[in-house]
C-alpha cells in the first residue's frame, strides 16, 4: 500500500508513505495527525466516514485542511489485491460549506483501466464488498468500536458483531421483513370476511322469518275470504272503496268533519292508508261517544231539574210572596234601616256630647269648691284683700323706723369710739363738740365703760331681728295677696266656662237658660241624658225589626233566584220559553226524544266496529304484500350483494395470506441461515478469540471468552460470556470486568475476527487506552505477532506502548514513523 495525502483534515503539505508488508507504527503527540492519516485511507476508499455523528459537520467542512494553499483535500491510495492487481484510487474535494454536503470526486485505475465518478464508485463497491460501517467495524479498531462492542445497547452490540462477522446484511433482511404488518392485514381481511359471512347469515335468518310471517298473514287472509294468491293492490283498492264509503256515512251521521282520503295508487300509499283511515275513525268515535254521553247526562239532568222545579213551585205557594213586589219591599226596608241608623247615630253623638259636658261640669264644680275653701282659709288668716294691704303698709312703716333707729345707734357707737380715742390722747377740759368744760378723766372713764358694755351693738342686733321678722311678714302677706288674685281670676274663668257650656247645650237644641251654676248644669244634663237613652232604646227595637225583615226578604230572593235558574235550564233542555205547568208538560216528550237519539248513537258504534275490521283487513293485505316485496328484495338484491362482496374478498384474502406465507417462509429461512452461519463462524472463532485473549493478560479467574447468540423476540443478539478455565463459573463481561479488562476482551474479539477479513490490512487507532503496563506489553507482543502475518498500522501517543512496540521492532522489522508536533504546515515525519 502506498498513501499520498495533502490538504486532508490535520494534514496540510503532502505526506507520502509506502506501507509494504511490515508493520507501521505511527508515534506522535495528541493532535500530531495520526488519526487524520488513518481516516485518509477510509475516506479515499468510501468517500465518507462511518463515524461522523457531530451535528457541527453540517455547518463546517472539516475534511479539507483549513490552511491548504488551494483549499483542496487529496488522497491517493495504491493497493494490491490477492491476485497481484494494482488498484490506484485518487479522491479529491474542494472546500465547501459543510462536510456532509459537497462532492468528493474519485478516479480509479485498475490494471491501466481508468474509471471516474459513479462508475468508479460502483466498481469500488463491487471490489470491496464492504460498507464504510463494515470496514470500520472489521478493519479499524478504535474507541468507538470498543464502546459499541462492550458498553452499548445489546441491539447495537449485536449489529456491530454481525458487521465484524460479515452477517450484518442477513440481520438487516430479517429485521426489515414486516411480518406483523402483513399478519395484521390478513387478519383485517379475515375480519371483513367474517363480517360479510355474518351479514349473509343474518339475511338468511331474516328471510326465513319473513317467509313464516308471510305464511301466517296468508292464513289470516284466507279466513277473511281473501285468497292469498289473489291478494294484490286491486283487492286492496276494492276494500278501501267500501270501507271509505262507510266511514264517510258514519261521519255524516255523527256530524263529524273528517279529512278527504284519496284512493292509494302505489304500495307505499297503500301502507299509509289504513292508519290514516284509523285516525279518522277514531276522531268519529270520539265525537260519537261524547254525543252519547251528553244525551245520557241531559236525561238525568232533566229528571233532577223537573223535581226541583215542582218543589220550587210548591214553596212559592206556601210563602205567598209576590216576586214582582219583592224588590220594592226590600228597597223600602233598606231605606228605613238607613234612616233609623242616621237617627241612632245622632242620639249617640248627643249622648257623647252630654256625657263630656257633665264630666266637665263635675270637674269644674269640684275645683270651684276647692278654690272657695282656700279663699276662706286665707281670709281667716290674713283678712280680706283690703285688710292684707293695710297690714302690709303698717309693717312697712315699722321697718322704715327700725332702719332709722339702727342708723342712729350706729352713729352713736362711732361717736363713743371716736370720743374714747380723743380723750385717750387729749387732756383738754373742754368738749370738742359743744366746747363745754369737761373732766377728761371722768369722760375717759365713762366712755371706756360704755365701750366695754357695748350697749349700741346689742340694741342694733335687736333692731335687726325685728327688721327680719317684719320682712318675713311682708312676704307672707304679699303671697296671700297674689293667691287671692289668682283664685279670683280662676273663679272668673269658671263663670265664663259655665256660659260656654250653656251655649253648647243651646246649640244641641236644649234650653239651659235657667241654669246658674255647675250643680244645676249637672242635674240638667243628666236629665237630658236619660231622655236620650230612652229614645235610643226605642230606636234600637225598630232597627232590629227592620233588619229581621230584610234578612227574610233576602232568603226569599235567593230561593227565587235558584228557582229561576232551574226554570232557565229546563227551558234550555226542552228548547222552549214556556213557564210553570206548560214547561212541565214539555219535559217528558223531550226525555223520550233524547232516549231515542242515545239508542241511535249506540247503534252507530256497531257500524264503527265493522269499519275498524275492514281497516284491519286492509292492513293484513298490505302487510302480506309488503312481506312479499321484502322477500323479493332479499332474494334478488341483498343476498346476491353480500355473496358478491364475499366473492371479492376471497381472492384478496388468498393473495394476502400467500404474501404472509411467503414473508414468513423467507423470515424462517433467513433465521435458519443466520443460525447456520453464526454456528459455522462462531465454532471456529472461539479458538482464535481465546488464543488472543490468553496472550493479552486475561482476567485472573474468568480466563476464557465466548460469544453466545441468543434469540430474543424472534431476533438473535450476542452475549459476551467470560468463563473460568475449568468451565464451572461464568459471567457476563459487562457485569464483572473492569474497564481495562473489558478493553482487553474487546481487542481479543476484534483481532480474532479481523484476521479473517479479506481486506489485507488492519488499523489500530490508540488501542491502549486505560491499559496498565502489563497489558500494554501483552498488546505489543500480540500486535507484533499479528503484524508478522498481516499488514497492520498502529497509531499511538502512549509512550509506554511506543516503548513496548520499539522493543519488538527487531523481531517485526516494523517501520516506525515518528510524527512532529502539529503546526499549520500539517503532519510531518521526523
Amino acid at each position, binding site marked *: 500500500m502506498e498513501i499520498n495525502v495533502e490538504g486532508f483534515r490535520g494534514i496540510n503539505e503532502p505526506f507520502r508513505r509506502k506501507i509494504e508488508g511490515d508493520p507501521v507504527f505511527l508515534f506522535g503527540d495528541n493532535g500530531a495527525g495520526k488519526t487524520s492519516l488513518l481516516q485518509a485511507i477510509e475516506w479515499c476508499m468510501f468517500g465518507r466516514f462511518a463515524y461522523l455523528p457531530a451535528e457541527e459537520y453540517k455547518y463546517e467542512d472539516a475534511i479539507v485542511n483549513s490552511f491548504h494553499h488551494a483549499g483542496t483535500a487529496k488522497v491517493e491510495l495504491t493497493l494490491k489485491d490477492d491476485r497481484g492487481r494494482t488498484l490506484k484510487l485518487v479522491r479529491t474535494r474542494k472546500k465547501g460549506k459543510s462536510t456532509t454536503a459537497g462532492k468528493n470526486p474519485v478516479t480509479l485505475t485498475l490494471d491501466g483501466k481508468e474509471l471516474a465518478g459513479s462508475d468508479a464508485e460502483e466498481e469500488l463497491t*463491487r471490489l470491496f*464488498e464492504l460498507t464504510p460501517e463494515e470496514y470500520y467495524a472489521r478493519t479499524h479498531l478504535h474507541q468507538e468500536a470498543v464502546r459499541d462492542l462492550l458498553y452499548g445497547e445489546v441491539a447495537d452490540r449485536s449489529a456491530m458483531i454481525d458487521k465484524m462477522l460479515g452477517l450484518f446484511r442477513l440481520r438487516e433482511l430479517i*429485521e426489515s421483513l*414486516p411480518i406483523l404488518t402483513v399478519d395484521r392485514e390478513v387478519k383485517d381481511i379475515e375480519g371483513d370476511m367474517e363480517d360479510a359471512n355474518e351479514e349473509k347469515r343474518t339475511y338468511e335468518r331474516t328471510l326465513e322469518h319473513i317467509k313464516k310471517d308471510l305464511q301466517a298473514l296468508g292464513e289470516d287472509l284466507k279466513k277473511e275470504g281473501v285468497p292469498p294468491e289473489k291478494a294484490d293492490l286491486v283487492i286492496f283498492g276494492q276494500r278501501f272503496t267500501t270501507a271509505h264509503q262507510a266511514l264517510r256515512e258514519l261521519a255524516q251521521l255523527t256530524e263529524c268533519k273528517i279529512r278527504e282520503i284519496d284512493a292509494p295508487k302505489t304500495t307505499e300509499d297503500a301502507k299509509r292508508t289504513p292508519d290514516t283511515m284509523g285516525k279518522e275513525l277514531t276522531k268519529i268515535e270520539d265525537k260519537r261517544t261524547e254525543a252519547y254521553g251528553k244525551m245520557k247526562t241531559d236525561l238525568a239532568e232533566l229528571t233532577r231539574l223537573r223535581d226541583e222545579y215542582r218543589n220550587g213551585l210548591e214553596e212559592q205557594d206556601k210563602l205567598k210572596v209576590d216576586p214582582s213586589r219583592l224588590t220594592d219591599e226590600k228597597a223600602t226596608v233598606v231605606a228605613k234601616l238607613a234612616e233609623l241608623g242616621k237617627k241612632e247615630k245622632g242620639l249617640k253623638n248627643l249622648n257623647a256630647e252630654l256625657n263630656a259636658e257633665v264630666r266637665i261640669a263635675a270637674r269644674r264644680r269640684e275645683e270651684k269648691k276647692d278654690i272657695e275653701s282656700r279663699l276662706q282659709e286665707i281670709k281667716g288668716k290674713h283678712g280680706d284683700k283690703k285688710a292684707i294691704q293695710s297690714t302690709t303698709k303698717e309693717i312697712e312703716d315699722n321697718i322704715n323706723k327700725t332702719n332709722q333707729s339702727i342708723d342712729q345707734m350706729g352713729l352713736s357707737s362711732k361717736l363713743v369710739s371716736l370720743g374714747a380715742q380723743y380723750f385717750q390722747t387729749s387732756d383738754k377740759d373742754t368738749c370738742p363738740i359743744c366746747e363745754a368744760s369737761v373732766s377728761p378723766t371722768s369722760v375717759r372713764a365713762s366712755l371706756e365703760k360704755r365701750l366695754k358694755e357695748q350697749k349700741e351693738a346689742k340694741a342694733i342686733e335687736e333692731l335687726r331681728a325685728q327688721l327680719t321678722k317684719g320682712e318675713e311678714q311682708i312676704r307672707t302677706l304679699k303671697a296671700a295677696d297674689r293667691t287671692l288674685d289668682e283664685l279670683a281670676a280662676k273663679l272668673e274663668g269658671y263663670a265664663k266656662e259655665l256660659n260656654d257650656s250653656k251655649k253648647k247645650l243651646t246649640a244641641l237644641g236644649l234650653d239651659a237658660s235657667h241654669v246658674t251654676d255647675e250643680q244645676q248644669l249637672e242635674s240638667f244634663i243628666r236629665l237630658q241624658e236619660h231622655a236620650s237613652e230612652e229614645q235610643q232604646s226605642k230606636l234600637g227595637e225598630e232597627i232590629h225589626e227592620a233588619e229581621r225583615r230584610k234578612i227574610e226578604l233576602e232568603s226569599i230572593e235567593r230561593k227565587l233566584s235558584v228557582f229561576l235558574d232551574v226554570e232557565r235550564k229546563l227551558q234550555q233542555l226542552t228548547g222552549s220559553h214556556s213557564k210553570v205547568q206548560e214547561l212541565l208538560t214539555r219535559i217528558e216528550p223531550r226525555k223520550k226524544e233524547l232516549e231515542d237519539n242515545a239508542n241511535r248513537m249506540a247503534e252507530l258504534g256497531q257500524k264503527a266496529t265493522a269499519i275498524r275490521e275492514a281497516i284491519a283487513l286492509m292492513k293484513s293485505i298490505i302487510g302480506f304484500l309488503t312481506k312479499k316485496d321484502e322477500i323479493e328484495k332479499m332474494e334478488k338484491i341483498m343476498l346476491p350483494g353480500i355473496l358478491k362482496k364475499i366473492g371479492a374478498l376471497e381472492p384478496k384474502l388468498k393473495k*394476502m395470506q400467500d*404474501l404472509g406465507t411467503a414473508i414468513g417462509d*423467507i423470515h*424462517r429461512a433467513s433465521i435458519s*441461515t443466520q443460525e447456520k452461519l453464526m454456528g459455522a463462524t462462531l465454532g471456529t472463532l472461539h479458538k482464535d478469540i481465546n488464543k488472543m485473549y490468553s496472550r493479552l493478560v486475561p482476567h485472573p479467574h474468568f480466563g476464557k471468552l465466548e460469544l453466545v447468540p441468543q434469540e430474543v423476540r424472534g431476533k438473535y443478539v450476542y452475549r459476551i460470556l467470560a468463563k473460568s478455565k475449568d468451565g464451572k463459573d461464568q459471567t457476563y463481561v459487562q457485569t464483572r470486568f473492569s474497564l481495562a479488562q473489558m478493553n482487553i476482551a474487546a481487542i481479543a474479539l476484534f483481532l480474532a475476527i479481523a484476521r479473517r477479513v479479506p481486506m489485507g490490512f488492519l488499523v489500530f487507532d490508540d488501542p491502549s487506552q486505560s491499559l496498565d503496563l502489563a497489558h500494554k506489553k501483552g498488546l505489543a507482543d500480540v500486535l507484533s505477532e499479528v503484524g508478522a502475518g498481516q499488514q497492520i498500522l498502529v497509531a499511538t501517543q502512549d509512550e509506554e506502548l511506543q516503548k513496548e512496540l520499539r522493543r519488538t521492532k527487531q523481531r517485526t522489522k516494523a517501520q516506525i514513523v515518528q510524527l512532529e508536533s502539529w503546526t499549520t504546515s500539517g503532519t510531518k515525519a521526523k
Partner: protein
Amino acid sequence: MPRDAYEQITDEIEKRLARKKHANLLRVLVQVLKEDGTEGVKKEIKARVAEIKEE
C-alpha cells in the same frame, strides 16, 4: 475479491425455503435491500399489501 455477499445470502436462504416459489420474492427483496436498504424492503412489501387491498 469475494463473491457478492448478497448473492451468498440469497443462495443460503433459498436453500432453506419451505416452498421454492417464494424464491422470486426473496430475490426481489434482497435486490431492494442491496439498492435501497431496509427501508426499501419495508416499502416494497407495503406496496404489495396496498396493491392487494386495492384490487
